[in-house]
């Protein structure tokens, strides 16, 4: 095993840039910040490619399985002899794959932002936050201890808060940032309690040890974890489902998805990086990392499956009705992540049933590329048109040829048209779904059709429909914006051909997968039909879409209004938490608890006023008290204390 300690450099480089740009950025590097950020990220990308080559090809497999290497481990905070948070780096197929995905997409975004964010007043802080995000994402991927995952999980949340709230003078951006952080924080609470449960029953916080202890059915930890139950579900289910809730929050699964569409307030490259490729897949990565434990507990896996499938379908329906292009892409991300989740949910460990696990990660791999390409394309378009709404766009294919081609490739990829990457990963998911759960397969198929419909609705309304009314327009942006688009487009095409199955599988052993054409006729056929419907409706500007929408009536309205989930959350916070919990407590503190103390003060004042009355200045009263005293004392002395 060759020495992998240089991998420690990959997360540290972005951290270094963050510190440099964060502290000195404003004064010295305001213009050159972009280059510093991109250069350091280029270095870590190259390093991660080297590491991948060395791990997959040079060291290769040992009796058919890639070895898990702990490159570096240091006890960070020890709670007790065998339970401690220790920082470390783990190298195994998933983490190396994620390394490549995160660093390359982040590099593309860095390069793209050189052009996109030029002239911004807080240019250096933008790059500082971007590198902070990349550092925490890389840290999350390489962590060896669940608490270390939690630490970087929070840092990812915080940096996404800072990036969404980048245009801080816009109140909507601030509100969106706050919402994102609070919702993810709520999910992190579940994650924390899940960690506490696993940590306590598993006896350790180290992921490797936990997997080893909780997968061996006759191990002491596993037994007492499954026997101890709370409200009917065993502690293992509680722990795992709570951890999944943490993941669901970050990956914007159904109940906790409300922050993703609002997160589009941030600059588009940020959305491309965070809300397309990296942060949102953290939940999938977490479930994949703890997959052996999840597989021991069917009930939590079914939770994962059904939430994933429902989110996919739910998001696809909403995406078809949205008019803001970034919202459409946000919902499409949510839908694709739903795909990955339920692919994991239906998978088992080992052999043929492990296909779901491999398919999900393969989809994650391909999705990262074409989704970030879509976002960057959308960014270029917005940069040109200075508005997010579809109706202000149209006929841009002549003005922006490169973006047009790249956008088209990405749409074909995400729709799952054969030669492109999306087809291969989605096929794997569909085959896995077909073998294990017919209902999920049906939902997946329908959602695939919906996906291609809304993607091409988006494509036609941006690049075709009416002629563009733009008078003054500066060209398609500098090369720094075009180059990433092309590179990502290339990846979107080639990613499909990567022999993913012999790198990453649920049990490590290579899994030979074949694309049987008969099976893939159904999905591809449906996709082509959906594309033609989209073309028919949106190729030329006409009123057919509005007529169709009218027919759907309230269903369309509901979908457009995102099924009122936002309003529900607002209702809960504004109408229930604030007035019925917040105000009473604040009022109680001011009046009851504080009031009690003031009451004490007032009663003492009253009593002292009464006692004061005894000093009435009346001599005769004094003689009376005097005589009373003598009498009492005499009685006491004579009768009681003989």
């Amino acid at each position: 095993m060759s020495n992998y300690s240089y991998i420690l450099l990959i997360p540290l480089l972005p951290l270094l840039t963050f510190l440099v740009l964060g502290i000195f950025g404003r004064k010295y590097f305001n213009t050159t910040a972009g280059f510093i950020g991109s250069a350091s990220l280029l270095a870590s990308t190259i390093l991660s490619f080297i590491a991948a080559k060395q791990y997959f090809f040079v060291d290769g497999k040992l009796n058919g399985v890639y070895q898990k290497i702990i490159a570096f481990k240091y006890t960070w905070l020890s709670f007790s002899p065998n339970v401690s948070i220790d920082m470390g780096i783990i190298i195994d197929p998933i983490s190396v794959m994620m390394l490549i995905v995160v660093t390359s997409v982040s590099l593309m975004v860095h390069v793209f932002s050189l052009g996109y964010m030029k002239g911004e007043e807080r240019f250096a802080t933008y790059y500082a936050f971007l590198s902070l995000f990349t550092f925490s994402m890389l840290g999350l991927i390489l962590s060896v201890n669940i608490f270390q995952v939690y630490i970087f999980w929070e840092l990812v949340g915080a940096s996404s808060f800072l990036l969404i709230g980048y245009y801080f003078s816009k109140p909507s951006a601030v509100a969106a940032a706050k919402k994102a952080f609070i919702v993810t924080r709520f999910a992190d609470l579940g994650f924390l309690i899940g960690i506490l449960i696993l940590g306590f029953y598993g006896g350790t916080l180290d992921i490797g040890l936990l997997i080893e202890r909780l997968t061996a059915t006759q191990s002491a930890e596993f037994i007492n974890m499954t026997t101890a139950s709370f409200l009917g579900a065993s502690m293992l289910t509680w722990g795992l489902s709570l951890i999944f809730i943490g993941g669901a929050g970050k990956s914007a699964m159904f109940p906790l998805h409300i922050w993703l569409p609002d997160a589009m307030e941030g600059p588009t490259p940020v959305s491309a990086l965070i809300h397309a490729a990296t942060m949102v897949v953290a939940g999938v990565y977490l479930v994949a990392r703890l997959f052996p434990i999840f597989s021991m507990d069917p009930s939590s896996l079914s939770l994962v499956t059904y939430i994933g499938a429902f989110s996919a379908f739910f998001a696809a329906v909403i995406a078809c009705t949205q008019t803001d292009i970034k919202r459409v892409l946000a919902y499409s991300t949510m839908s694709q992540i739903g795909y990955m989740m339920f692919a994991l949910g239906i998978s088992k460990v080992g052999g043929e049933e492990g296909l779901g696990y491999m398919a999900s990660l393969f989809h994650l791999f391909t999705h990262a590329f074409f989704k970030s390409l879509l976002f960057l394309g959308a960014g270029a378009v917005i940069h040109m048109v200075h508005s997010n709404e579809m109706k202000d766009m149209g006929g841009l294919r002549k003005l922006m040829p490169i973006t047009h081609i790249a956008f088209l490739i990405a749409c074909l990829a995400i729709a799952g048209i054969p030669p492109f990457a999306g087809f291969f990963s989605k096929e794997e998911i569909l085959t896995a779904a077909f073998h294990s759960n017919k209902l999920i397969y049906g939902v997946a198929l329908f959602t695939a059709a919906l996906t291609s419909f809304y993607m091409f609705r988006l494509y036609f309304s941006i690049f075709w429909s009416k002629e563009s009314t733009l008078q003054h327009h500066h060209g398609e942006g500098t090369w720094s914006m075009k180059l990433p688009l092309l590179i990502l487009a290339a990846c979107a095409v080639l990613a499909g051909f990567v022999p993913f199955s012999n790198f990453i599988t649920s049990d490590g052993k290579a899994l030979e997968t074949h694309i049987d054409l008969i099976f893939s006729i159904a999905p591809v056929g449906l996709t082509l039909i959906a594309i033609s419907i989209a073309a028919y409706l949106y190729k030329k500007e006409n009123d057919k879409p509005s007529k169709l929408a009218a027919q759907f009536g309230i269903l369309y309205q509901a979908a457009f209004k995102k099924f009122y989930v936002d309003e529900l959350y607002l209702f809960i916070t504004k109408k229930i938490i604030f007035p019925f919990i917040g105000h009473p407590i604040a009022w109680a503190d001011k009046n009851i608890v504080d009031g009690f103390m003031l009451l004490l003060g007032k009663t003492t004042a009253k009593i002292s006023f009464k006692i004061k009355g005894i000093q009435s200045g009346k001599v005769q009263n004094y003689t009376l008290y005097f005589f009373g005293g003598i009498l009492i004392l005499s009685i006491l002395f004579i009768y009681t204390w003989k």
Partner: protein
Amino acid sequence: MNITTILFYLIAACILGAGILAVTSTKIFRAAIWLLFSLVSVAALYFWMQVEFIAAIQIVVYVGGIVVLIIFSIFLTQQSGKEMPKPRATKTISSLAAALFGFLFTCNLIKHYSFESAIGKPFDSSIHTIGIQMLSTQEHGYILPFEVISMLLLAAMIGCIVIAMKKESTQ
């Protein structure tokens, strides 16, 4: 029931009757006079107890001195004929109850306390012995209190003069 007991009850009745009237009469001058009678009957009690010297002193100092002083002060401070305001009912009742309760309590004490009266020892209270003992410096001598009392009386005299002096400056 021989003559001395009758005499005793007579004197006691005088003391207590004059006392009550001294305390309750509304006219201040009349109260002073009843006080005079009460003190005189106390002197009579002393005579009854054959301590003539103390009786004499009682008449000279108390009756002759203090009651006269009180009557002078009545003339000085207000027209003697003026009616004194009747005290409030509640106060009278409560102080009456207090006094009665105190009286009964002490009588109860006296009854239950067995005084072993020293019968047989001669009681010589003649002026001769009083005079000797007053100035003797031996074991039971009262020379020291005698001297101290003289200083006290002097101080009291000066005090009264200073207090009661008409201050030209304040007018």
